[in-house]
Every structure is written in structure tokens, then in C-alpha cells.
């Protein structure tokens, strides 16, 4: 660790991992509810478990992004953080707000929660992924603005690099597009349209910039390749991401009541969306392949390579699978979408956050890399989680194809619930793959506590 203030990243990383564990536990609960409908009912109904599962994902990734920024920016800018104190305050505010929101979901009926938190003043609740009560949404904006102030001031007073500028662009975009969550028009078509401005332009727009910046930072550190070479790749990747991703939003506009031309625009541009992910895969492998020395932190290198491959498969290949309008006409909202969502989020965002944690945590703990034993365990966790996620995706895809056929293609189409009964075998297999994923996650946690001979930081 080159700058003292980088230490503030550690609590963010710890919180991120803790919430990740919570997310997977609720994922397992939901997976069980798919096959045993009244599992944990009425204590944790399916809709609540789903809300907690997806909201925890968003919150822990945000913790991960913030931790990454606090770690990376001082090093990139070659200066201490503008205010370490502010970063600490924001950590506790965000953690408290997140915890209270999740507890609210779990212990207060959603309608009562809406009433209690002023949803009648400005109705923003009740929309998928944006279920947060109004005070939480305002809290997110306040935390995001204060965080951006801190990071931007740090960049402004220090060295400006392509990585820090791309990271800033992504983080500012994240905050700005979240503002659309406050706009909730009565017209359902317009409501959906602006809802996608948050959801799509986050994950298929500005978050990709954050992903690319994080990956570039780690690759410079672990390969020793010239910054100029990596920065050229970074420019290409973010250009591709923005050119394809922004108009690619149109693939969500096919069937919500927008004009028909969106079927063309959405299909063409989103068919190109795998290209930046493909470039990221080439980028990661290219940089690691050309390095001249082995970095002691092999686990971080593995996570970086895994990010490239899994992001391409999950976001790129599985996204393309159902993105063309004539295909999406049949597959829309089926388990194929769930398959894509799981692998894309894991491959692109979960893995890149773990990459930066894997690289930064040993340094934050005063060593260049963890002991060989700890790294072996961490690499085991990589394979367990990644292979489990591949199987989760395959089982959901199989369930989705069967569902589409039985429910939408067949000459004698079944009702939704009747079709669900026919794919239950795949849901069981998905649940078991989920258990393996959870074991992988516990292995990952255990790797932090394994002792052994560590590698010292070179001076």
C-alpha cells in the first residue's frame, strides 16, 4: 500500500463480502422456493426473498466499486485521498442505510413500508430492482455525491490518468442515471422506458466503464506491461461499450409500447454488445500472456482472466442468445433471461470486484501476496464458484428453452404454472449447483484466515 488513506478501502471490501454472503443465502432460499413452493412461507415470501437477493447484489457491488475507487485513486493520482474522514463517515451511513432497508423488507409488509417511508409524497417504490424506500434512495444519492466529491477532488489535486478518468466517468454516470429512479410517470410505457435508463444504462453502460478501469488497473499491476499499451486497449473497450450499449437499450423497448423501429435499433446495436466484452477477454489474456515475470499474487491474475472469459460468456454470448427481436418475441422474460442475468452479473461485476479485492487485500494487510496455502484455497473457490455458475446458467437455459416451447411455441400451449411444473428437474439441479456455489463462497471466506509464509512487499 503506497498511501495511508488507501486503508479506508478495507472496510468497504469486508462489507461487500459480508453482503455477498447474504445475497447467496437468499438466492438459495429462492431456489428452494422454486421447487418447494411454501418453503419458509409466510416468514420469507418469494417476492421478499427476490427483492433482498437482487438489492443485496446491487448494494454489495456498490460497496465493492467504492472500495476499489478508494484503493485505486490515490495510487493513480499519486496523492492521499482528499478526505479519509468523509470516506469513513460515508461507509457507516451507507452500511446503516443498506441494513435498515433490508431489515425493512424482511420485517415490515412492503405496502406498510411504503406508507411509513413517504412513498405517498413521491411514489418511487414497487419497481423491480428499484424497490428501495424514498429515504434510502435519497441516502444513496447523498452518499454517491459525497463519495464522488471525495474521489473527484483527489483526482483533481493529483496525477490524471486514463484509468482514473474512465473510472470517474463510470462513477459519475452511475450516480446520474440513478436519478431516473425518482421519475415515475403514470404512463406505464414511459415508466418502463425511464426505468431502463437506470437498469440498462447502469449494467450495459456506465458500469462497463468501471469494470474496464478496474481490470486495467489490476492488469498494469500484475503484468508490468506499459501503461500506454493498456490505456490504448482501455480507450477501445470503453468506446465499444458506449457505442453499442447506449442505443442497445432499445432491446428493452421491443414490447413495452414504444414505436416499432426500436425492434431494429435494439436488435442491431445490442447484437454488437458482445464486442466490448470480447475485447475485454482479448485484453486480459493479451496482457497476461505478454508479461515477462510471474506476479506473486496468482489468485488475482486468475480472477482477472476469469472476469474476461465469464463476462464475455454471460453478458456477451448469453445476451446475444435472446437479444434479436424475432427471438426475444418468444423468449422474453423466460428462464433464459434469468440464465443470462446470473452469468452476466457474476462474470462481469462480481468477478471484477473480487479481482480488485484479491489484488488489494493482501497489500492492505501489509504483504504483496497471501501465502501459497491461502492462494491455493482462493483458487479453489474461484473454480468452485465459476463452475457452479456455469451449471446454474446451463440448467436455467435448459429450463428456459423448455418453458418457451411448452408455454409459447407449442400448438397446445400450457399455462405459466403448468409449464413450471414440467421444468422442475432443472430447478432442482440449479439449486444443487447453487449449493456448490455457496461452498465456493465459504471457501473464499476461509482463504482470508489461512496463515502461512506470505510474500513481502517490494520497496
Amino acid at each position: 500500500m503506497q498511501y495511508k488513506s488507501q486503508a479506508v478501502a478495507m472496510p468497504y471490501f469486508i462489507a461487500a463480502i459480508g453482503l455477498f454472503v447474504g445475497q447467496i443465502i437468499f438466492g438459495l432460499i429462492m431456489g428452494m422456493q422454486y421447487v418447494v413452493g411454501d418453503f419458509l412461507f409466510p416468514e420469507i415470501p418469494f417476492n421478499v426473498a427476490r427483492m433482498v437477493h437482487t438489492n443485496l447484489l446491487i448494494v454489495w457491488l456498490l460497496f465493492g466499486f467504492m472500495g476499489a475507487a478508494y484503493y485505486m485513486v490515490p495510487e493513480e493520482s499519486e496523492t492521499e485521498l482528499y478526505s479519509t474522514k468523509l470516506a469513513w463517515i460515508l461507509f457507516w451511513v451507507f452500511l446503516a442505510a443498506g441494513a435498515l432497508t433490508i431489515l425493512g423488507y424482511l420485517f415490515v409488509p412492503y405496502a406498510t413500508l411504503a406508507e411509513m417511508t413517504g412513498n405517498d409524497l413521491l411514489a418511487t417504490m414497487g419497481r423491480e430492482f428499484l424497490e428501495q424506500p424514498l429515504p434510502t434512495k435519497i441516502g444513496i444519492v447523498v452518499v454517491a455525491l459525497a463519495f464522488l466529491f471525495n474521489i473527484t477532488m483527489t483526482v483533481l489535486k493529483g496525477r490524471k490518468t486514463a484509468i482514473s478518468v474512465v473510472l470517474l466517468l463510470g462513477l459519475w454516470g452511475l450516480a446520474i442515471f440513478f436519478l431516473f429512479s425518482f421519475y415515475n410517470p403514470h404512463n406505464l410505457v414511459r415508466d418502463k422506458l425511464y426505468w431502463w435508463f437506470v437498469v440498462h444504462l447502469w449494467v450495459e453502460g456506465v458500469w462497463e466503464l468501471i469494470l474496464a478501469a478496474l481490470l486495467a488497473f489490476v492488469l498494469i499491476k500484475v503484468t508490468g506491461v506499459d501503461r500506454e499499451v493498456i490505456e490504448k486497449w482501455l480507450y477501445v473497450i470503453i468506446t465499444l461499450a458506449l457505442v453499442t450499449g447506449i442505443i442497445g437499450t432499445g432491446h428493452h423497448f421491443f414490447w413495452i409500447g414504444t414505436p416499432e423501429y426500436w425492434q431494429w435499433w435494439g436488435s442491431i446495436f445490442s447484437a454488437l454488445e458482445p464486442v466490448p466484452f470480447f475485447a475485454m477477454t482479448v485484453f486480459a489474456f493479451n496482457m497476461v500472456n505478454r508479461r515477462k515475470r510471474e506476479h506473486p499474487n496468482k489468485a488475482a491474475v486468475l480472477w482477472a482472466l476469469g472476469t474476461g472469459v465469464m463476462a464475455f460468456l454471460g453478458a456477451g454470448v448469453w445476451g446475444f442468445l435472446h437479444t434479436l427481436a424475432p427471438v426475444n418475441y418468444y423468449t422474453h422474460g423466460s428462464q433464459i433471461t434469468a440464465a443470462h442475468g446470473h452469468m452476466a452479473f457474476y462474470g462481469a461485476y462480481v468477478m471484477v470486484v473480487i479481482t480488485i479485492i484479491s489484488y488489494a487485500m493482501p497489500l492492505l494487510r501489509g504483504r504483496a501476496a497471501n501465502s501459497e496455502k491461502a492462494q491455493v484455497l482462493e483458487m479453489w473457490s474461484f473454480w468452485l464458484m465459476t463452475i457452479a455458475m456455469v451449471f446454474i446458467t446451463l440448467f436455467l437455459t435448459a429450463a428456459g428453452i423448455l418453458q418457451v416451447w411448452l408455454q409459447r411455441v407449442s400448438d397446445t400451449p400450457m399455462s405459466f404454472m403448468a409449464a413450471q411444473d414440467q421444468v422442475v428437474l432443472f430447478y432442482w439441479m440449479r439449486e444443487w449447483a447453487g449449493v456448490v456455489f455457496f461452498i465456493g463462497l465459504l471457501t473464499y471466506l476461509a482463504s482470508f484466515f489461512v496463515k502461512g509464509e506470505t510474500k513481502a512487499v517490494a520497496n
Partner: protein
Amino acid sequence: MSLERKDPLKHLMPGPPLAVIAEALFLINLMLLPGIAFLVLVALWLRHGDHPDPLVRNHLRQTVVTCIWGGGLLVSISVAIFVLGGFDNPWSWVIGVLYFVLFHAGLILLGVLGLVRAINGRTWRYPLVGPRRDD
């Protein structure tokens, strides 16, 4: 014959351009212009198959042979799944789509490795179907 290669830590593309083009065409054939990119690749191989740089020969031969084998297995097994299982059978679709996506994505990922090796001026052999010798 000894050939000087650029330093991979300092140059964006230290490998020979022809090798990179061959691997790029392999990927374009899989992702953007199936058939057309393959024909261009074959034309390139016919013209430069005896190139003095062994690296160029290696990548040209690997990509052409893998294109033929990979494409053959991708198409023939997919067709077989649907013909044997029947288009009206949902299980044909489950197995057929999963097979196609996995095999296709697998070829792309191998192509990425080939492209990276070409960019960095290194030889590459596609697993299983890639020829052992380059001439």
C-alpha cells in the same frame, strides 16, 4: 531463420500482422461473417502458406484446419440433433441450442487464445483438432 520480434511490454502488437489477420479471420468467421471470412482465410493460406516466417505458417495452418474441423462438427452435430430428434421435439431444442452455444463459444475462446498468441508473436496449437505440424 531467426526473426527479430518487438518487445511485448512496449509494443501494442509485437507479432507478425499476417498471423494476427489469420486469427482475426478465424474469429470473424465465427462471429460476424461466417463463410466469407473463411474463404478469405483460405485465400490467405493459399497465398502465404509457405511464408518464410514460421509463426505466420503456424497460425495460418492452425486456423484453416480448425475452421474446417470446428465448422464441420458445429454444423453437422447441430443438424444431426434436430434431424434425429425432430424439429417438433422440445428436447431437440434444449440439447441443440445448448450444444451449439457451448461449442461455438468454446471455439471463440480458443480463437481468442490463438489471437493473443499471434499478437504477442508466439506459436499456437488448437487443442485436439489443430495439426501437430505447421508444414
